[in-house]
Structure formats: structure tokens, C-alpha cells
């Protein structure tokens, strides 16, 4: 009995050992977890077996011939050199086999392409080198980077054994979460270069192309974690932008959405921080967001990514640097859209006081918040705008309005219409001598409130006094002298009549 037991244990160990070994020597296509991925797998196996079958026939004949029809065995060469019947047969049979392959292939392709009747949509944007996910229906929005442990281990000469890192290079800081048993439509685009989004378990990949939108869909039956990678060469860290999809049951997923929305509401912490705190926290943000291009030591890559150490920008005016970081330039993405005000303040302060720089100054989250475009402020100042300011605002003198208007113009209009109001035709019209600015004041107010083509509507983003001020400023400055004005109270009434701002924006 004991021996039988031992035998079973030994057998179990052998099977276990083989299984572990197989895990590392996987041979075949991943079957995946969706109906589509299983259909693709079946198609793959069908063609594979057809190829194996043909291969055995052709190679078998060839090797038979090589063995038997050799001169050393005394075989004398026949001299035939064509046979029309045979040649027709081996043209027609492959044609029929191909038709047999094309039918199931067409079926699966049509199935893969059908994105209709989806339950929800997720917009996926490829960035160098991270993924951005926007849940179109709920407004949940975040970036997904390579996780920190993998990122440390993957540095040249890190000395960290990748085998000690769980899910090395296939783990992210914030995974994509989807509900099970729902048809999910994905919309793909890219911010910079081509990327391609591939999770083998879902059975397909789709390119993310800047300026274009591609569609694909999935329906995951069971909860689980599914991992993938970018599959279109997208620059130096192409190998380091993995994808992790977690499929959850609907109730868990709903709870996750709720938490995400609550976290997003919290927004940035705008309280002042000591320079030491800013620098300490900035170091982590630099490691995660900046070091891939500017390198961990700030030396950059000459010709492609400028050095931070000793940089004229970093050692120059702090507001100029902040503007560059917020709005981007060339290959540098606009981080104003990706990081919160406190994180931006931290990383900017860090670069000025580390990596070989010793400027010795700091910028506070509040100052960054001022520089951020108002509409994209992460935390909408808790609905205090329209209602809390319902009381009528006192009238102001024209000079006061023009003075206030100048600063409002400086932070809201100048980037398109330029400092002297000369604009940037044909894209951005000049305000100087503009027909609108020098025409009916109500028509101008209407345009600024609601926007037109490239011009955004400022009805929601400016306060009534700021709005009145900037209108008055444009009509009495920048080379215009209409000598009229509008009072904040008038604007306030117009703003109250505007449709409510869409919360999902």
C-alpha cells in the first residue's frame, strides 16, 4: 500500500514538473477567454492541421525520393519533365482547399467587425509610452503606466533579477477595469505615434492611430486578469507599455466606478507645501513621468530629448518652465492634461532643485492651478459658481474693467489672439480692427459666451466680472477704441440663462 502511495506521489510530482515546464515552453496560440478568441483559435488550428497534412504529403514524397532515388543506390535517372494531368491536379486541389479555408475565415472576420449594440464604450489613447483610458459613459478617466517594480528592474544594469518581479513587464500601476457579460466597444486613437492595443486573451489587436479612430469589441464571460502589450513599434519604450484588463462582475464593477468618480472629485490638494516636501514628492513623479525621456539622472538623450541638468529652461523663469510643462512643445506632451496641480508643482520644483540644478525656488500648487486652462481644472470648485454668486455684482468703472480685462485676456485669450490682438490668421482672427469687436457689443458677448468654430465658449469658464472686463478690454484696447462697456450684472443674467454644463465633460 505504501509503495502504491509512493508511486502516486512520484507520478504526481512528475506530472507537476512537466506542467511547470510546459508553462515556460508554451507552444501554441493562446485560446483566450471570449467567443471570438476561441473562434480565432479554432481557425488557427484548422489551417495549422491543413498545413501539417500537406507538409507530410510533400515532405514525405521528397524524403522517399531522397532515400530511394539516389545515385549511390544505383538509381538511374528517369528523363520525364512534364505531365499536364498532374500539373492541373496540383493546381486545382489547392484552390479547393483555399476555398474551404476562406469560408470559416470570412465568418469569423464578420463577427469580429460587428461593434453594434454595445453596452458601453471605452476610449483608448496610446501615448509614448502609456495608455489613457476614458469611459465614455461614466466619465472615469485615467492613465495606465508600467508598474514601478518592473520599471526599476528593466533599467540597463539595474541588478534586479526580472524573475523576482511579479508579472515583470506585464503589470501596470492602474489597470483597465471592465464588467463581465457586457459587450464593450473600444475606440482607439493615439496622441503621438502609432500604437497597437493587444490583449491575446481577447483574440485581437487594433492599431491606435493619431487623428483617426478605430473600433473593436469584446465580451468577457468570466472575471479574471488579462495581460497584453503594445504591438506597434512606438519608440524607445515600446516594450514597456503593457496592458492589464481586469474583468469584474457587474456589482463589483459598479462599486469600482463609484470609487473612481469619488476620487476624481477630490481633485488636487491646493494647500501650500514646503519646498522640501515639494522636492521629495516631485522625485517620484519625475521617475514615473519624465525619466523615460529625460533619463533618471536628467542627462537626456542628445538630439532627441534635451537634458534637464543645466537646462536653460529649468534654470530660467519658473513660470516659463511651468508653461512649457503644462502645454508641451514638440515631442514633449502637455502634462497639464495628465497631472494634477500639486503633482505639477512638485515635479517642477524638483527639477529646479535636483538633477544638478540649484535654482533654489519653488512653485506652489495654487500658482499652477492659475496657469491651468480653467475648463480642465480637475476639481470643479464644488458647484459654487452659478448659484453662490447669484447676488448682483456691483458695477465697475470702465478703467477698472479694462485693467481687470487685461489680466483675464492674458490668461485666456493671448495664446490664440496674441498679446497685441494681432491674432494668427487664418486660424485665429485678429481682434485689432476686428468687425466683431468693433461692432454690436451684444453680438460680441454672444460669440464669447457660446464660442464659434475653434473659439471655445467662455460662458461657463469665466466669472461674470472677468467676462465683462475682458469684453470691455478688447473694445478699448488692442488698437480698438469703441469707448463702450458692459457691466458684470448684465453678463450674470446672460450666464444664468445658459444651459447647464454637461457633467461628463
Amino acid at each position, binding site marked *: 500500500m505504501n509503495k502504491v502511495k509512493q508511486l502516486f506521489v512520484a507520478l504526481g510530482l512528475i506530472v507537476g514538473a512537466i506542467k511547470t515546464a510546459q508553462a515556460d515552453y508554451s507552444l501554441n496560440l493562446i485560446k483566450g477567454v471570449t467567443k471570438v478568441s476561441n473562434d480565432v483559435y479554432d481557425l*488557427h488550428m484548422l*489551417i495549422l492541421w491543413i498545413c501539417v497534412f500537406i507538409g507530410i504529403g510533400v515532405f514525405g514524397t521528397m524524403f522517399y525520393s*531522397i532515400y530511394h532515388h539516389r545515385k549511390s543506390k544505383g538509381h538511374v535517372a528517369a528523363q520525364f519533365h512534364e505531365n499536364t494531368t498532374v500539373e492541373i491536379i496540383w493546381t486545382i486541389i489547392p484552390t479547393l482547399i483555399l476555398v474551404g479555408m476562406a469560408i470559416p475565415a470570412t465568418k469569423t472576420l464578420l463577427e469580429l467587425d460587428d461593434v453594434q449594440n454595445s453596452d458601453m464604450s471605452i476610449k483608448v489613447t496610446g501615448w509614448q509610452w502609456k495608455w489613457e483610458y476614458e469611459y465614455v459613459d461614466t466619465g472615469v478617466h485615467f492613465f495606465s503606466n508600467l508598474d514601478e517594480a518592473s520599471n526599476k528592474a528593466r533599467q540597463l544594469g539595474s541588478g534586479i533579477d526580472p524573475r523576482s518581479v511579479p508579472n515583470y513587464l506585464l503589470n501596470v500601476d492602474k489597470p483597465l477595469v471592465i464588467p463581465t457579460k457586457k459587450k464593450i466597444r473600444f475606440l482607439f486613437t493615439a496622441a503621438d505615434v502609432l500604437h497597437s492595443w493587444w490583449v491575446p486573451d481577447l483574440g485581437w489587436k487594433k492599431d491606435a492611430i493619431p487623428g483617426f479612430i478605430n473600433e473593436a469589441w469584446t465580451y468577457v464571460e468570466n472575471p479574471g486578469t488579462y495581460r497584453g502589450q503594445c504591438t506597434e513599434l512606438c519608440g524607445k519604450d515600446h516594450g514597456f507599455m503593457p496592458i492589464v484588463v481586469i474583468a469584474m462582475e457587474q456589482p463589483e464593477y459598479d462599486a469600482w466606478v463609484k470609487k473612481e468618480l469619488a476620487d476624481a472629485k477630490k481633485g488636487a490638494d491646493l494647500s501650500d507645501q514646503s519646498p522640501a516636501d515639494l522636492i521629495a514628492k516631485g522625485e517620484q513623479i519625475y521617475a514615473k513621468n519624465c525619466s523615460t525621456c529625460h533619463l533618471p539622472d536628467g542627462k537626456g538623450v542628445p538630439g532627441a530629448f534635451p537634458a534637464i541638468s543645466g537646462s536653460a529652461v529649468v534654470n530660467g523663469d519658473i513660470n516659463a518652465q511651468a508653461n512649457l510643462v503644462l502645454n508641451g512643445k514638440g515631442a514633449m506632451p502637455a502634462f497639464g492634461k495628465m497631472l494634477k496641480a500639486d503633482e505639477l508643482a512638485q515635479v517642477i520644483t524638483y527639477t529646479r532643485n535636483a538633477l544638478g540644478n540649484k535654482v533654489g525656488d519653488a512653485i506652489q500648487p495654487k500658482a499652477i492651478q492659475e496657469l491651468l486652462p480653467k475648463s480642465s481644472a480637475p476639481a470643479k470648485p464644488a458647484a459654487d459658481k452659478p448659484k453662490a454668486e447669484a447676488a448682483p455684482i456691483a458695477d465697475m468703472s470702465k478703467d477698472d474693467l479694462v485693467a481687470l480685462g487685461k489680466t483675464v485676456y492674458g490668461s485666456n485669450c493671448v495664446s490664440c489672439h496674441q498679446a497685441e490682438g494681432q491674432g494668427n490668421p487664418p486660424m485665429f482672427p485678429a481682434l485689432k480692427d476686428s468687425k466683431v469687436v468693433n461692432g454690436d457689443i451684444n453680438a460680441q458677448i454672444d460669440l464669447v459666451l457660446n464660442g464659434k468654430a475653434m473659439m471655445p465658449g467662455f460662458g461657463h469658464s469665466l466669472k461674470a466680472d472677468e467676462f465683462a472686463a475682458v469684453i470691455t478690454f478688447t473694445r478699448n484696447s488692442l488698437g480698438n477704441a469703441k469707448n463702450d462697456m458692459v457691466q458684470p450684472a448684465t453678463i450674470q443674467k446672460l450666464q444664468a440663462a445658459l444651459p447647464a454644463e454637461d457633467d461628463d465633460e
Partner: protein
Amino acid sequence: MSAVVAEHDDHHDHSHDDHAHGPEKGLLRWIITTNHKDIGTLYLVFALAMFFVGGIMAMVIRAELFEPGMQFVNPQFFNSMTTMHALVMVFGAVMPGFVGLANWMVPMMIGAPDMALPRMNNMSFWVLVAGVLLLASTLFMEGGAPASGWTLYPPLVLQTGKALPFAIFSVHLLGISSIMGAINIIATIFNMRAPGMTLMKMPLFVWTWLITAFLLIAVMPVFAGAVTMLLTDRFFGTSFFDAAGGGDPVLYQHIFWFFGHPEVYIMILPTFGVASTIIPVFARKPLFGYSSMVYATASIAFLSFIVWAHHMFTVGMPMAGELYFMYATMLIAIPTGVKVFNWTATMWKGAMTFETPMLFAISFVVLFTLGGFTGLMMSIAPSDFQYHDTYFIVAHFHYTLVPASVFILMAAGYFWLPKWTGHMYNEKIGQLHFWLSAVSVNILFFPQHFLGLAGMPRRIPDYAVQFADWNMISSIGGFLFGASQLLFLYIVIDTIRGGTGEKVTDEVWEDAHKHSLEWTLPSPAPYHTFTTPPEVIPTEHF
């Protein structure tokens, strides 16, 4: 050239004439030569040198991928290596290798004294050298060599540093060189065949090169156009490939692959030609289905123009486009199958011997067919959504290039070296080279199928640990394959310097003179051959 010879024939006796019109002395011979054999040698030597340069880059890639984690190079340089490896191997090694063979063999096979346009022949070689050197120089430029893959897809390629305009100009030079070479081959084949050498009597190598030359003329200008659009997008404010200016990044991919797909056939059609030349000689049988081989080659060439977007199944084409390109691509299996069946039927009931060229040719048929099978698998669009841009495709195209084009270039070397040099190569070392190469090439590339199917993307410098084992095996195969090629270098040098010392006959291989004209010439082939056309024309079908 022949006019000059004829003029001298009036004044001197024949042997004196041969002496007077030998090659120039010293280095100048190789720079100013217009002799098709000299230029063929230049091309072949250059291709072999570039094969090792590209090979060293491959070794860098396989060394970095030996283990998970980054050990030797940074990711940007790794990307430069994959890009330059491909460009050097395609434009520096394989294409010039076959142009070298064409230069040596086409005139000798059709009974012509030289190429039709000898001075242009010289120029096309030196323009090639300039192009490849310019490309190589980008490795030392600020921002590094191009690192966006040999396909040079925008917008990524526009992020290249100082190297971009140099790389683009080098592509222009390579294109000019290829077009001049192609014009020369077409002019030679159409105008300089010996009397009685009708088109359907030409050796298949000549046929495949004729068709390849037309492909080159058709598609090299397309590639030149695509890279010129990159140049203007980067430097002159155009937006061909930039959506923000009304362009489309996918447009580049359509243009590139309209060039790129015929381009891969430019590398494989002459391969078919050499295989169809070697196999009958060692099977001691005429080639089976000569005319169907010619038609199959022409069909493949035609199909190569109408299947390009199967490289782009994942870019989001309309359904009609996906279906069309899937069906059209599947069709390629038919003429390719005909070729494989014909080679098998040529061996059938032959009296085969297995010298090194035959070994390489047989392994070409087997391993190229494997690459063809994976090609068929990838033609199925829904499956390609899984295979695309993984190591599965890396395995596929390396099977159709390394144990196909490269093996056949080596087979050609063993096959014709005795004719070129008058010396026999060392058969034992040749066979050792074959077996080492054939085994290691499979250790190198076969596991890459598994890696791709398991989910490893291509063009990544580091990978998740579940891919570690097959990568290590693949790298070991790579190092073995790379080291084995040093044997080939040794054999080539040894053969040039005398080889086994055995005096080779004119036909070198038993009854080879029945198959093709070059075996009726002395070994080594004299500096000038067929100054008077041959009288008897052997044909593939005897």
C-alpha cells in the same frame, strides 16, 4: 566592348588579343572595371561583407534577448539595431548578392559577351556602396541611426534625430542603383541572347531575374516617393502623413507596402531561379514543368502588386478591404505550391547526389515551404489579428529569407565557385557548414513561432519572464548560426586561393553542360567569354 575586340582581331592573333584585354593591374581594376565578371565579384564580395555587418547587428539583438532584463544596450539603440539589421540585410546583403549572381551568370547563361550597359553596371555598383555607407554613417550621428523599423512608419520615423535626411538620401541612392541594375539586366536579356536562345529556352535563373528586374523598376520609385514625402513632412511643412494637417499616417503604410510586398519577392524570385538551376543538375534530370515554373513566377510577380494591405490587417480597413486582401493573399499559395511540387517532381526518380549545393537547395525547398505555410496562416485576416507584429511573423519572414534566400546564395556560391575560380572547394568543410547552418537556423527561428503564439510582440528589447526559455534557445541558435558562417568565409577564401588543389573540369558537375551554357566554358571562366556566340544551346528540358 565587343566592337573593340573585333577591331583588334583584325590586327592580332587570338591569343595575343586575350592577353592585351585582360584586366587592369592593381586596385584600379576594381574601381573602373566594366567587366561583368569583375562587377559580379564586387557585388558578391560586398554582399558577403554586409552579411557579416548585418549579422553582427543580429548578434547584438540576440545577445540582448538572451535573458529577460536589459543587459547590454539601451532600448533606443536596440531599435536602431533591428532597423539597421533589416536595412543592411535587405539592401546590402541579399539584393546585391543576387545582383552579383546576375552579373556573373546572366551573360554566361544566355551566351552574351557582357552586360548590355557595362559602364552603367559599374556605376550602379558604386552608387550602391555609397548608399550603404551613407546609411551606416547614421549610426554615428546625433540622435542615433533610424530606430523606427525598416518600414520607417511615420509619425515615429519623423522623431529620428539628425540621421533622417541621410537615411532618406541613402534610400534614394539604393533605389537608383537597383533601377540601373534592373535596366541593365532587362536590356541584356532582351538584346544579347545568343542565336537560338529563345525566351522559353532560357535557364530559369535568367527568367526569374527578368521578372524581378521589372518588379524593381516598378516599385523602387514608389519607395523613393514615400520617403521623399517623409522628407517634406519633416522639413518643408507638408502634412502627407499628419492628420492634424489633413494627412493620414496609414497612407504611408499603403505606399510603403505597395513597394514592400513586391520587394520581398524581389528577394525570393531569383532564389527560386537558382534552386531550379541546382536541383536538376544533382538529380541528373531535366527540371520538371519548365513552362509552368515560368508562368508561376510571373503569376507570383503579378499577385505581389495586389496583396499589399495584408501587412496592415489591424490598421482598421473597411470590411471589403480586409476580405479582398485576405482572398487575394491566399491565392499566392497556388503558384507557390506549383513551384514546390515541381521541385519535388524534379527530384522524383532522379539519380541524386548530395554535394553541398544540393544540400542547401533541398533544405531551401523544405524550410521555405515551412515559411510558406506560416504565410498562408497569416493570410487569414482574423487569425492575423493575433499573429500580427508578434514573433510569429518574425519567424515567418526569417524562414523565407534566411534558410531560403541566404541558403540559396550560399548554394550558388558552392555551385559556381569552381567555375569562377577554377578551384574546387573543400567538400567536407562545405558539408560541415551546411549541417551546422541547417540545424542552428532551426534552433534560431523555430522557437520564435512559439514565442509569437504565446504573445511576445516583435521589436521589443526586453520581455516578460514566461518568454525567457525559448528566447534563450533562439539566441543560442543565433550564436551558432552566426559562428557557422565564419566557415563559409573560410571556404570562399580557401577556394579562391586554390581550394583542394584538384583540377576542375569545364562542366564541374556531372553532365552539367546539358543544363546550361556556363558549363561549356573553361574553368575558371576566362575574362572575356562568348565573344563569339555559342553554337549549341542546351535547354532546361534538354
